[in-house]
């Protein structure tokens, strides 16, 4: 349900960036979404269809770029990509983990005229 608020924030941010860069229409929004966030691309798309109406995003599609969860073990130093956010080192089993990627949620770029 919080995807409503964040999709609203997404549309506002893209409209503001378009305004700043003198674009009247946006066609593509490149969105990075880490897999260790609470954001679901499906729900974002769902709300986007409604929220983009009558804005510069009206004709835009979102291109989702999912960022995997990459962790570094501060004990053995190894880096691994994990599917599920369970922060245990797959190599040494220690739980002293730094999350390197997976928490991203940002607009990488927009395309338009």
């Amino acid at each position, binding site marked *: 349900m*919080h995807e409503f608020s964040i999709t609203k924030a997404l549309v506002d941010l893209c409209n503001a960036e378009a305004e700043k860069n003198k674009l009247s229409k946006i066609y593509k929004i490149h969105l990075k979404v880490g897999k260790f966030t609470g954001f679901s691309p499906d729900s974002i798309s769902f709300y986007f269809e409604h929220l983009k109406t009558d804005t510069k995003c009206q004709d835009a599609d979102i291109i989702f770029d999912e960022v995997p969860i990459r962790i570094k073990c501060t004990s053995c130093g190894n880096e691994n990509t994990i599917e599920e956010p369970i922060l245990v080192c797959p190599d040494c089993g220690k739980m002293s983990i730094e999350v390197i990627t997976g928490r991203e*949620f940002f607009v990488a770029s927009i395309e338009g005229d």
Partner: protein
Amino acid sequence: MKKINVLKPVLVSNKQRAQENRKIFDNMGSLVINIIASPGAGKTSVIEKIARYFKKTLNLLIIEGDIRGQVDSKRLAKLGVDVVQINTLTACHLDAFMTAQVLPQIKKKYDLILVENVGNLVCPAEFEIGEDYKLAILSTPEGDDKPLKYPLLFHLARVVIINKSDLLPFVDFSNETAKNNIRRENSKAKIFEVSAKTGDGFDDLYLFLEKELNEKKKKGKNKG
């Protein structure tokens, strides 16, 4: 067609507002704790215990977040502490802007501000409000697997309270498994096992909060 590199977090405006809120809270010297849990985990009961313990020795404010109504704020006001209500109406979480809206109602310097977020383990985790840190509550009837099912909150929470320890004989919940699951998301989380019903386990929590309050005061003094 032109391509513009944006490279800005979607929640950039929430983040900026949260930083402004934090600055305001820091200037007041307030320790601000964002309390997040599912509906019925015992957020209000835990807050009541903390409020009862600290209300005589320090200035305490509770910011109460609910979708609708003032049930909890009325309950908490009976303790004789200051309570400010935020009704989110449709939103399933508090955000930095809703928090900013009640700042004008905060008329004095509070030592401790407890923010009771909307009951939900998912959404509130992603929205900073200007807090010092998040405190998650997990109650024993919910099951010891919840940290793995709602990993983000447990990853981000500095403190995790396991509440309703008095129900342990009646529910399928292992403290050891729960703690291990919390550690698998957050090896640094400070974990307390309590019962808001019987009061068990609260002494350790009070000691911890006293230390935190002193640290925050020291920080404020060094700044000023």
